[in-house]
């Protein structure tokens, strides 16, 4: 489309502009009319774990919608052979699958899980907040800034287009000269910093802020999974940070790390997957934790094989660092390397299998209550097992030459990531919704959501296995009638729209619940862990008085014995909450600096960097510990 003063712009972007303006205007007037600005301002200043968790989840759902619409564009373009849907061919198609992948991994899966950790983790272990509330707000706003930077790209007709893995040399400035991929680098970099800080926060919280008597061996499995995931983040994300830094030097400052005769494109693959493979465990382990808690809760039974569950989590985490080259079997690393990585990859099936059997044994002879969170858990087990089986198939290096870069791989990782992370996040949202909002999501709508989503999911991705085995490569925007994959693709598209429809039930459920239903009880699911001892929604200082824990599922046994949890004496001080605009402003100036780097505007880089550094000074001079320590010295 030719727009006056602006020039040639693809029509999908023009439509997006119009929709954003309309939606923005509508939201603005609604917020003003409903008098909600105060609430928004409160949230912008908060450092409270529950509120930050809710913001993570809200933003994740927004990005989920964006990434989901991208997926629907992809599926519509692929619905029939030789299709010509709207603008989504060639380079435009590359942009759509790149944004879809990147958004779903970095801006949906990560914040969904980190959001749930924020809400539930402190409550599960008896902490009054995360160890560093201010840092937690910084983490969130860095994530938000990264998400905004990345999503902006499309609106300026500069969406990244080298795939979510940013493989070089395609991603270097020799082959993709426009600023498109700079958006990827800066967006992911900024949100990645936020993730690293969150991991630090989680680990310190778990190590130092557990309730008296809450030994590590009495900690709920979701908290365990949060701990192990955080450790994985500590090792994996800094590698990504440096990989992105080097790529940035290649693109902006003329170095050749990943390009040309002197550079090494495969080195990028190594760095990316040394981050990238632990990353898939980073996003699936917390889901395992959620399911462990939910299955135990709704089977009215202690989780089967608690110790082996923890050991399996740790083992998966450890092995997760030794498998990265299974993404590179066809690169030509040699048969020794391929054999090693094939074996380590297959080994991961062992701890995962332990977990699956433990979940099944937890349900065995339990009193199983089928509520919405439990439904998601039940849907997860077979779905994830299918993804695991295809994973072992892919681990066979020789066979991988056939599967590599085909739709078989696409089907595999959607089975694991949607089957694990997304179903887990939904389950977690239904499960902990009372703790976030003080309301219970509607069961009936929840069941609609579940069944439509699960049926749509299998319709979408089951046929892709066969399309892939029939030779359909990933990342192509069309295929021919004589390829005989029309029916498979068509079914897949129908399934995708079913999943889209199920999301409408989910959104409607949230709206309906928040608008029309009343307060939830503190313990609506007859729970076993500490979060159910505090009110719904969780208050600012939930553990006053602080309980003393003497076993796993202590709350459950207290209920059975018709007793209260004993009160603990000499409780450690809580982290100090503050209300401050600093984190959101800091994220703002870092965003400005990032735009400067994306477009190579030196003055903007300097202004942004200077302002960011100034925040370190401001932070140091307005330290909230000052008043607390002063009071202590006066005593």
């Amino acid at each position, binding site marked *: 489309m030719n727009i006056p003063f602006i020039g040639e712009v693809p029509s999908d972007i023009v439509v997006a502009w119009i929709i954003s303006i309309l939606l923005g205007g509508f939201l603005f007037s609604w917020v003003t009319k409903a008098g909600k600005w105060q609430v928004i301002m409160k949230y912008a200043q908060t450092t409270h774990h529950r509120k930050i968790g809710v913001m993570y989840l809200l933003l994740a759902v927004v990005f989920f919608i964006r990434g989901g619409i991208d997926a629907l564009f992809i599926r519509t373009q692929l619905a029939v052979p030789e299709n010509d849907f709207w603008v989504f061919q060639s380079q435009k198609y590359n942009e759509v699958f790149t944004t879809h992948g990147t958004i779903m991994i970095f801006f949906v899966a990560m914040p969904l899980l980190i959001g749930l950790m924020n809400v539930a983790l402190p409550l599960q272990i008896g902490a009054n907040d995360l160890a560093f509330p201010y840092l937690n707000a910084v983490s969130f706003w860095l994530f938000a800034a990264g998400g905004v930077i990345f999503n902006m790209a499309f609106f300026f007709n500069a969406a990244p287009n080298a795939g979510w893995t940013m493989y070089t040399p395609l991603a270097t400035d020799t082959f993709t000269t426009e600023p498109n991929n700079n958006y990827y680098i800066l967006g992911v970099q900024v949100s990645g910093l936020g993730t690293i800080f969150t991991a630090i926060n989680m680990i310190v919280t778990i190590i130092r802020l557990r309730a008296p008597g809450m030994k590590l061996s009495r900690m709920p499995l979701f908290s365990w999974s949060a701990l192990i995931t955080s450790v994985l983040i500590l090792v994996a994300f800094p590698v990504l940070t*440096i990989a992105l830094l080097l790529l940035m030097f290649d693109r902006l400052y003329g170095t050749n790390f990943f390009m040309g005769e002197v550079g090494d494109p495969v080195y990028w693959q190594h760095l990316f997957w040394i981050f990238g493979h632990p990353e898939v465990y980073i996003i699936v382990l917390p889901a395992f934790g959620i399911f462990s808690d939910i299955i135990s809760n709704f089977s009215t039974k202690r989780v089967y094989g608690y110790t082996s569950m923890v050991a399996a989590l740790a083992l998966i985490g450890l092995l997760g660092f030794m498998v990265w080259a299974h993404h590179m079997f066809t690169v030509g690393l040699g048969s020794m390397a391929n054999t090693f990585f094939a074996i380590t990859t297959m080994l991961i099936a062992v701890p995962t299998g332990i977990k699956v059997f433990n979940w099944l044994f937890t349900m065995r002879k339990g009193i199983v209550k089928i509520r919405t969170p439990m439904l998601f858990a039940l849907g997860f087990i077979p779905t994830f097992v299918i993804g695991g089986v295809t994973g072992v198939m892919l681990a066979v290096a020789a066979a991988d030459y056939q599967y590599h870069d085909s739709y078989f791989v696409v089907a595999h990782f959607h089975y694991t990531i949607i089957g694990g992370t997304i179903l887990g996040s939904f389950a977690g949202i239904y499960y902990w919704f009372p703790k976030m909002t003080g309301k219970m999501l509607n069961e009936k709508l929840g069941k609609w959501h579940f069944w439509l989503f699960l049926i749509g999911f299998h319709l979408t991705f089951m046929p892709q296995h066969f399309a892939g085995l029939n030779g359909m490569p990933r990342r192509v925007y069309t295929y021919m009638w004589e390829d005989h994959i029309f029916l498979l693709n068509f079914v897949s598209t129908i399934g995708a729209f079913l999943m889209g429809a199920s999301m409408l039930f989910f959104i409607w459920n949230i709206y309906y619940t928040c608008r029309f239903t009343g307060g939830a009880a503190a313990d609506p699911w007859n729970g076993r862990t500490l979060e159910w001892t505090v009110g719904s929604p969780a208050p600012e200082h939930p553990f006053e008085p602080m309980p003393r824990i003497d076993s796993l599922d202590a709350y459950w046994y207290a209920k059975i014995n018709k007793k209260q949890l004993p009160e603990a004496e000499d409780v450690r001080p809580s*982290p100090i909450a503050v209300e401050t605009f600093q984190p959101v402003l800091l994220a703002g100036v870092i965003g400005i600096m990032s735009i400067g780097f994306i477009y190579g505007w030196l003055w903007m880089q300097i202004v942004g960097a200077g302002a960011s550094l100034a925040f370190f000074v401001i932070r140091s001079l307005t330290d909230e510990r000052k008043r607390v*320590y002063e009071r202590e010295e006066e005593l």
Partner: protein
Amino acid sequence: MKQVSEILYQDKKLGFFIYLIVEAVMFATLFATYIIFTPPSEGVQPDEVYELKTVILTSVFLLSSSGTLLVAESGLKHWNRMKIWLGLGLTLLLGSLFMGFEVHEFYKYASEGHTITVNNFLSSFYVLVGLHASHVAFGLAWMILLMLQFKQQKIPESLFIEKHKIFNYYWHFVDAIWVMIILIVYAPYLF
């Protein structure tokens, strides 16, 4: 019952140590990059670039600055303001000298035509050593801020000690990275 400040300080210390692990992983990745690309297959070689004199000077200044910081640390223990001033002042001076010679080194290499884009040995050298130098620069600014707060005496003693200690960990860490740089980046090509 331990004091509030003591417990919150222990939280912060653990968090900061974990942060230093993150930094260590970042530097490790850059060291790996340097080792992979050095010596380069073509273009200028490291032994044609490095200059022993500057490396010795920068090392002497930075490594001894960790020692002078110990003076300030012992001043913290007995709250000896004089010792804290002396330790911080000397460390700032030595750190600045390091920074000066580091800038001189980069400037000299670049003016000899050894710029960042020449080959991957130089690229990884500049990114790695440059990241370390920016850590030192950040540390210097941090130290100045710390001295300012020390002079103003507006924050409680316990908070100042906490801030000072966290800074000490940072500075010693940056020093340790420099030792690694000497061992991995310079030594194999200078001796």
